[in-house]
């Protein structure tokens, strides 16, 4: 199986995720875009694992999912807290931590 198509799909997904992180203001959307980037990476891992015929890539994909789940727990908790204090989920508004 030629992995190049899958890798290209993975690259497209990653780019969409990256652009989404950079241009969107809503924290939830940004979060989802981060997930998109992680899963684009997962897709690439799995594709390469299939071509090379060992399981290392697949295992890494599982690890990424676990880390992503943990990240979601922490990240969503932060977003909810911010929303409670500011009545908004925009990530541009909490900008007090600066020069």
């Amino acid at each position, binding site marked *: 199986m030629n992995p190049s198509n899958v890798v290209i799909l993975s690259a497209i997904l990653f780019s969409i995720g990256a652009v989404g*992180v*950079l241009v969107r203001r809503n924290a939830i959307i*940004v979060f989802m875009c981060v997930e998109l980037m992680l899963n684009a990476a997962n897709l690439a891992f799995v594709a390469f694992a299939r071509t090379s015929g060992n399981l290392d890539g697949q295992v890494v994909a599982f690890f990424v999912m676990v880390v992503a789940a943990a990240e979601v727990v922490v990240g969503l908790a932060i977003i909810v807290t911010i929303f409670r204090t500011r009545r908004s989920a925009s990530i*541009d508004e909490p*900008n007090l931590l*600066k*020069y």
Partner: protein
Amino acid sequence: MINASAAVWAEGAPTLQEVMPAEGVFSLIWLLIALPLLGATVLLLGGRRTNTWGPYLAVLTVSASAILGILMVVGLMDRGAEERSIGQSLFTWVFAGQFEANMAFQLDQLSMVFVLLITVVGALIHVYSLGYMQHDPNRRKFFGYLNLFVAAMLLLVLANNYLLLYVGWEGVGLASYLLIGFWQHKPSAAAAAKKAFIINRVGDVGLSIAIMVIFVTFGSVTFDDVFGQASEVNEGTLTAIGLLLLLAAAGKSAQFPLQAWLLDAMEGPTPVSALIHAATMVTAGVYLIARSNAIYDRAVWAATAVVVVGLITIFMGAIIGSAKDDIKKSLAGSTMSQIGYMVMAAGLGPIGYVFAIFHLLTHGVFKAGLFLGAGSVMHGMNDNVNMRRYGALRAAMVVTFITFMAGYLAIIGIPPFSGFWSKDEIIHAAFERSPIIGSLAILAAGITGFYMTRMVAMTFFGKARWEDDAHPHESPKVMTIPLIILALGSTFLGMALLFWGNIETWLEPVVGFSTSTSPLSTEAVIAISLTFVIIGSIIGWISYARREVPIVAPRGSLLTRAARADLYGDAVNEGLIVRPSFWLSRLLIWFDGRVVDGLVNGSAALVGGASGRMRRYQSGFARSYALSMVGGTVLVLLALVLVRLS
């Protein structure tokens, strides 16, 4: 030529004397110093409680030292000539690696005559001060300082190594500073004290460097070690040591070019001028040169420099002394001039050392007498020092007049007064070295005749030019008796030392001696120098006793005005040293403020400004951080790809 003369000098140079253990009365050498030191300690630490009896204690300690000194000289005379160098070591004072300096004393023929001069003249001046300082509220302190001076001076002449000598050297400098500034409520006295101290410091630096060079060269600072090995050291090193010691001597003895302090030092009380700035401390330079004869005998250039410095100072002092109206400053100029004679003689080599010390002794006595006489005159004239307001005092103060005349005849060198013997021997020795030096010395003797006659004529003869409230009177006995004793010394000391004391054979084992082979006979020298002295005196007499002395000083010739301004010694120092130092320090301040501080502050401002810009990138927007992360990643990837491709 240099080698030839060096060989000649080596002939007269002394061989090192064997040092005898201190026995009998000589086991008390330390007590000579300890007594006045004890007096100084009690008086200066005891405070007001010692006000009433303190001055008498000070007189007592110095007199006890003087008696001890006389006992010792009798003891030395009893011994054979080769047994007259006595050493006493108290304890190891400084011990570091190879360096060792002991608290050790050496009493030999040279130290002995100094001990006598210091303690006997010192005791007389202490007694005189009882009268002179009677009404001074701080006289306890005065006597404490005087005792401190005597102790330090004795340490200077009794030390058996250069380091201990240096302690005494600094000690007398301190005492001199304290006593010049004794009336420190007068700004001029305070300034004079500082001036003396600072100019002396220049000489002291010379001495300290000389000691360092001596230690590096000889591995020891003890006189015996240094002089014993002097013949094995090359002439260049010895010349360097000799010149550094000359710098030290010039500072302490007010010789050119460090002469400027002595005239201002007359701000101190008159007994101080007599003891420190005429009889003893200012002769320490001569002592240093005579003591280091083993070095100068082998470093002819250094010795020649000594002669030149002495000659210049003889004339500077004499010219200044001829123009001053202040009786003490005129005497100070004369002191400079007479010490110039001694320094010059000390530079002549073995033919001169003995006579340098001889003149030092006679000068110490007659100049102390002259200063105390001047003090006695001032005492009777409401402390006025201006000779233009004296005149015709011979009837008002007979004892002072007669004793002053004894000193006067001694200093101008009229036989048989003491100065005649010593000064003529110096002139005779100078002729052997070079006719030019001898002629200059004779010319200066003529000027001596002039300025001393001028002083005597203005003070004791002519018409009375007293201020209205002046009631001249003779001083009390406590002042006149020391004057009489010193006058007797001025009259007879020269003959006593020469004919009875045999000063040449006495000093020869320490400083060496070679008889003069001068082309001029002694009689011829005496005749010529007496002629010059008499001519000078007659000019002085005609100008200041026959003619009316104006109360306000006339403008005077160019030379007179220059001499009144101390031959511009201060201006030269100001122009050559003080102003350039100011400029240099201003330059350094500017350099420090602008360049050094500029660099430091500039780099700090640069970092501060740059980080001020940089921190603007910490905007607080999470998305801009994300963008920079993405951008950075892309850059890294691009770089990797480029590396792969190439």
